[in-house]
């Protein structure tokens, strides 16, 4: 009997083998994670800043859709740092939102929201005007909906249709009707994705609900308190 066979027949051998395999493989993964984490974090931050600026690209001087995609990290950071201020909602300060200016002129606010979709959490950025009554745009930042169906909430046409929709008149919050995808665009109505009613409704209802919650937290538009 060879020494290797004898070793393999020891009762502790499988435990030792798995322990050594675990240490080797997880060490390699930990090393790769450690080496790449700054790069990943930098991309996530850049992606977030680009998305946020993109929602206000018509209002911020000097950028448009075509050159935003071509901008490098330095340019994105420069615009972000001059136009965007991170704020917290009172009283507990746990909710972050962003105040956006063009020069000295306040142009709107941006809120990161999360809501339940069909398969998981949908995250988006919502840009609202200074009166806190009209959507300036939304950007889906993360979603796990069915590709080709609910996953189409990330398509430009679906996101862009929210711009200009009023959600508040005085203290009353409005609701938006869901209409078929091929319908002619209407005010106070959202064209839902064919075969993906749940995902379309999750975004629409979730957005309205989150905005109402923010309003109820008594955040005066234009105030950082």
């Amino acid at each position, binding site marked *: 009997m060879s020494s*290797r066979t004898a070793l*393999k027949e020891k009762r502790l*051998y*499988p435990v030792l*083998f*798995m322990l050594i*395999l*675990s240490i080797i*493989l997880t060490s*390699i*993964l930990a090393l*790769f*994670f450690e080496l*790449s984490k700054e*790069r*990943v974090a930098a*991309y996530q931050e850049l*992606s977030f800043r680009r998305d946020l600026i993109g929602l206000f690209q018509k209002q911020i001087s000097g950028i448009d859709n075509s050159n935003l995609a071509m901008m490098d990290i330095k340019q994105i950071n420069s615009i972000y740092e001059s136009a965007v201020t991170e704020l917290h909602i009172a009283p507990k300060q746990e909710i972050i939102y962003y105040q956006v200016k063009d020069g000295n002129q306040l142009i709107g606010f941006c809120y990161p929201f999360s809501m339940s979709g069909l*398969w*998981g959490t949908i995250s988006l950025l919502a840009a609202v005007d200074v009166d806190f009554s009209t959507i300036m745009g939304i950007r889906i930042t993360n*979603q*796990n909906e*069915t*590709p*080709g*169906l609910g996953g189409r909430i990330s398509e430009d046409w679906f996101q862009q249709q929210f711009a200009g929709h009023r959600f508040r008149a005085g203290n009353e919050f409005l609701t938006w009707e869901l209409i078929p995808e091929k319908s002619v665009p209407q005010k106070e109505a959202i064209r839902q994705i*064919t*075969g993906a009613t749940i995902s379309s409704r999750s975004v629409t209802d979730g957005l309205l609900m989150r905005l109402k919650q923010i309003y109820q937290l008594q955040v005066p538009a234009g105030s950082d308190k």
Partner: protein
Amino acid sequence: MKKIEIFRQSAFKENAIIIQILGICSALAVTNLMQNSLVMGLGVTFTLALSSMTASLIRNLIPSRVRMMAQTFIIAFYVILVDLFLKAFLPEVSRQLGPYVGLIITNCIIMGRLEAFAGKNPPLESLVDGIGAGTGYTLILLTISFVRELFGNGTLFGYKILGEWWIGWSIMSLAPSAFFLLALLIWIVESHKSKAGSK
């Protein structure tokens, strides 16, 4: 066996999806878009090839009682490595794929090839077998997704092919259409095989 023959066998003669009926779950899930199918295929091929080679390298050391546990561990290692790599170097692709990368771990083809081939053959042959099985899997995924994306969305790889007049067939974007198409593909291949066998 020659390496080219190993490749041909695992990619075509013993195609994982059509002949062995393995990896069906992912074939149903990702084949509504060609881009998802291609990236999933590449991810599976990479994981399969390297997992097979690694399992083959240590095949004489793996205790039989924890054999499958060790194989799963190796597969998970490569899948996480792919995920980390995509997040760090191809973040847009990672963003589009979402949860699909993690699903590679559950692909039965990988475990199947590790059990059937890599556990009994040398590392280089196992690597070729993994590449072959992954290639066969990718080709089937692309074939199904071609039909589903074209009729479901009127596009191929996201590019409009059928124009605005085309009204997409919603059924093609849903998993049941992949069942029908896969069954059709298996029927065609089996018919061809039995015709060839009877000649």
